[in-house]
């Protein structure tokens, strides 16, 4: 299942001619892009443009119709469950809703991903305290997710993502539903995580402030196709109506 097909030695995620449909509806059409190590790629697009489907296809949560997805040279769409799990050990995923386990406390949520690893409980708790500090949440370890605000839930989701020390982080709408101040704090936090942990990230968003803060490179999806690709500054100067609409916001 391993392939050395990357066009550059630094390419860690390679998506080739990806197509995905639900029934008769074509969601993604011939999507291709690469991400190099340590890069933050922001994928921008309107609601319903297939951004979340794309990220779920990349991590193997949704099967694809055709194309190829490589993460660390492992072909994700041909991998079996154990191979997928091996790749997923290196991946953290921040879901749009946070996807916190309602029936578990904050601390139990944090140590949950560590349960599959042979780590002493004391070390698990130390790791949890460390990530709680890194996202600016302390003294909430015994609370339940339902007692937290939207911003705190996002931070907790981020902390749970970080606890496994991932090489890749996929963010699905990390600032959606948050006020501008909290959104900005989350965006800054994502940047500091990239610098501190040297992670490679895919950030799905339609929040331009978040994109501006976090993007090394941007890709705009429109009706399931890649419309344009480039840096924030390059895209801001493009004479394309769809792209311009985002920058007007």
């Amino acid at each position: 299942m391993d392939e050395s097909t990357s066009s550059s030695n630094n390419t860690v995620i390679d998506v080739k001619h990806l197509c995905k449909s639900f029934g008769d509806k074509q969601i993604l059409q011939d999507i291709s892009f690469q991400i190099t190590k340590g890069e933050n790629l922001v994928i921008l697009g309107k609601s319903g443009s297939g951004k979340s489907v794309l990220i779920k296809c990349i991590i193997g949560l949704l099967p694809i119709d055709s194309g190829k997805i490589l993460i660390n040279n492992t072909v994700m769409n041909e991998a079996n469950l154990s191979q997928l799990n091996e790749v997923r050990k290196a991946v953290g995923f921040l879901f749009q809703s946070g996807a916190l386990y309602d029936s578990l406390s904050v601390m139990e949520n944090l140590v949950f991903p560590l349960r599959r690893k042979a780590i002493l409980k004391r070390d698990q708790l130390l790791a949890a305290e460390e990530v709680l500090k890194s996202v600016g949440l302390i003294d909430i370890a015994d609370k339940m997710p339902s007692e937290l605000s939207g911003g705190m839930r996002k931070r907790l989701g981020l902390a749970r993502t970080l606890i496994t020390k991932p090489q890749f982080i996929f963010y699905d709408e990390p600032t959606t539903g948050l006020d501008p101040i909290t959104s900005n704090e989350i965006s800054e936090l994502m940047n500091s995580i990239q610098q501190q942990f040297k992670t490679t990230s895919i950030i799905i968003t339609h929040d331009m402030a978040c994109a501006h803060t976090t993007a090394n490179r941007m890709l705009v999806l429109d009706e399931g196709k890649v419309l344009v690709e480039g840096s924030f500054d390059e895209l801001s100067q493009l004479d394309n109506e769809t792209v311009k609409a985002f920058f007007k916001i």
Partner: protein
Amino acid sequence: MIYTNWVRQCYFIGYNSLPLVGITGFIMGLVLTIQSRPTLASFGAESWLPAMVSVSIVREIGPVITGIICAGKVGSSIGAELASMRVTEQIDAMEVSGINPFNYLVVTRVLAATVMLPLLTIYSDCISLLGSFFGVNISGDVSFQLYLSQAMAELQFSDIVPSLTKTVFFGLAIGLISCYQGYTAAKGTVGVGKSANSSVVIASLLIFIIDMLAVQVTSLFI
């Protein structure tokens, strides 16, 4: 990790159902005794009351009532919980963490329901007999020892084993149906309600079907 979750599910399904199963069992035993007394008395067979009630409870009423109560309480709870986890992406989050959500969520719940139903039925049968004892003593004066000896006199091994065996299948049906309904839920909060509802309806119906089959199979051997 899976064993710990299985123990937790046994606690939720078994221990947390004790009050409801106990109260219902007590009332069933009491009511059955009070309702049956006049008919038996008209034939001068009042002394058969403990034996008749114990056979009815152990063979049929205890298992079916326990099954129906658990289909309502446990089935709806599992269906709604898993459906809610599905629509809020918690199951996806588990999968991305490299933890097999099927083993962690489904297998543990199905096994817990399968193990706990027979135990709850035994508990329900005992409490029903206690309720029946109180029913007998409403208009009589029978000691507990005498009641118990009369109740047990007509109970055979062939009454107890098939009735407990079918509760294993009741538990399996409740676990499988509610987990399937919850795990495959879709369409947001509407899907959660739908999953909880269909878990209860289908599991309850299956309990009666299994009961009917169990009676047919048992009658071949006894």
